[in-house]
């Protein structure tokens, strides 16, 4: 079943066509890689799919719904979650708080509840906190990436991620865990050939 469908998506920066008429499809459980030289528009394509830089033309459908005009946070709530090439953790928050910031907590995050926290909200927070503590801070290269990359897992159906993920260590998405179980430590070698096996038709015409 097609989970994500990108049809003739174009993104302009002024007169510059960063993404020009790209179409692709991804089925559930499928891993799809996008290859291209520096500046080919890979990251912009991901930003267009995730909504940070909405498409100027074309159509994006996710689980059968047209999301071309849906703001990025709503797309994320639908399960279309992206990570970033460069780890983009919240620097002024602790690791613990980074993970709490990712957890869904719409009630607790209201302004009034900063002053009038009910017991159930405090318990929700504590519960998320206990879950967060299972991710220890790891002082090694790649820990930063994992800290930032670990966030979206909670509700992700589909992770779109531009750029090489080798530096992130064991990938945290479901597919990544599958590699690890099969071949412990071999995820790096494993990820690359898979990423190259494109099944969609990413076709920037330039």
């Amino acid at each position: 079943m097609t989970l994500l469908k990108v049809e003739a998506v174009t993104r302009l920066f002024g007169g510059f066509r960063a993404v020009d008429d790209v179409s692709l499809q991804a089925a559930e459980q499928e891993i799809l890689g996008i290859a291209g030289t520096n500046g080919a528009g890979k990251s912009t394509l991901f930003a267009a799919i995730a909504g940070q830089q909405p498409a100027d033309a074309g159509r994006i459908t996710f689980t059968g719904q047209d999301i071309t005009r849906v703001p990025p946070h709503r797309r994320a709530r639908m399960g279309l979650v992206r990570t970033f090439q460069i780890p983009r953790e919240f620097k002024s928050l602790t690791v613990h708080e980074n993970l709490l910031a990712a957890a869904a907590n719409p009630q607790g995050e209201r302004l009034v509840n900063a002053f009038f926290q009910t017991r159930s909200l405090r318990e929700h927070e504590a519960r998320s906190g206990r879950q967060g503590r299972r991710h220890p801070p790891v002082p090694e290269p790649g820990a930063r990436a994992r800290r930032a990359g670990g966030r979206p897992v909670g509700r992700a159906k589909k992770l779109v991620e531009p750029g090489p993920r080798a530096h992130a260590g064991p990938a945290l998405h479901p597919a990544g865990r599958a590699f690890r179980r099969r071949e412990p430590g071999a995820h790096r070698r494993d990820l690359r050939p898979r990423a190259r096996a494109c099944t969609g038709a990413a076709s920037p015409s330039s």
Partner: protein
Amino acid sequence: MIAYLCAIGVIALIYCLLALGLNLQFGLTRLVNFGVVAFFAVGAYTSGLLSLQGVPLALCFVAAGVLSGLLALPIGLLSLRLRDDYLAIVTLGFSEAVRISIQQESWLTKGVQGLPGLPKLFAAWGPVSDVATFATLLALVALVSWGTVRLTRSPFGRLLKAIGDDEAALSALGKDPAWFKVQVFMLGAALAGVAGAFYAHFITFITPEQFIPLITFYVWMGLVMGGAGTVRGAVFGSLLLMVFLEGSRFAKDWVPGVSEVGMASLRLAAVGLALILVTLYRPNGLFGGPSK
């Protein structure tokens, strides 16, 4: 002397209140608001005009906060569409627009003549009214400080800091930065409005020339010197700025050969030098903890 110290103290606390408001906007959320004085002015004029109509002072203060907060709503909504540097320009322009509107709309604000004879807070208490104002302000600053700390530790405050760090990453997590930004913009503006009301009823005479962008930059200087993002930075930074600005008045007694006018210029130069030194050696501010 007591009266003088009390006056300095009240003005310093008003700056504290403004800095605490800006701290929510810039310190936590990294919204560059160069229009602090606009909300200060609207608060002062709202409360001043209402009090001249015989509205009880307590109500005037509430109205000042509410109206300033509401005025921040359109600017906040506008800020959603702008990158931070453009927000700075828009807010600066907005504050000038507010000042000039107050100057021109004389049917409402008496224009350049200003509003004289505003009622003082606790006027019935006679000689101790200024002390009472000072105490009230002190209590309010303490309350707002406590509230800010509480806010910073809450999930709401956590998201504000996350917005300040990386808005796009937050939206990728399924949270909408927009409404949080608008809320914090309104909250900071409401604080500035209340500060304006205190100012109006302490000075008792307000004119448009009092609400020039220099006020905004004094608040910024205090916050940046103290350390943006922390309550103690906002509070002690503003107090320090006041010590600088007022303390140098006395310095002329010890520095020979400098005229009164020359001293005023030297005073600003000293503040500028202090700001440069702080940014060089303590980029997080004097009370903002060590830089990472």
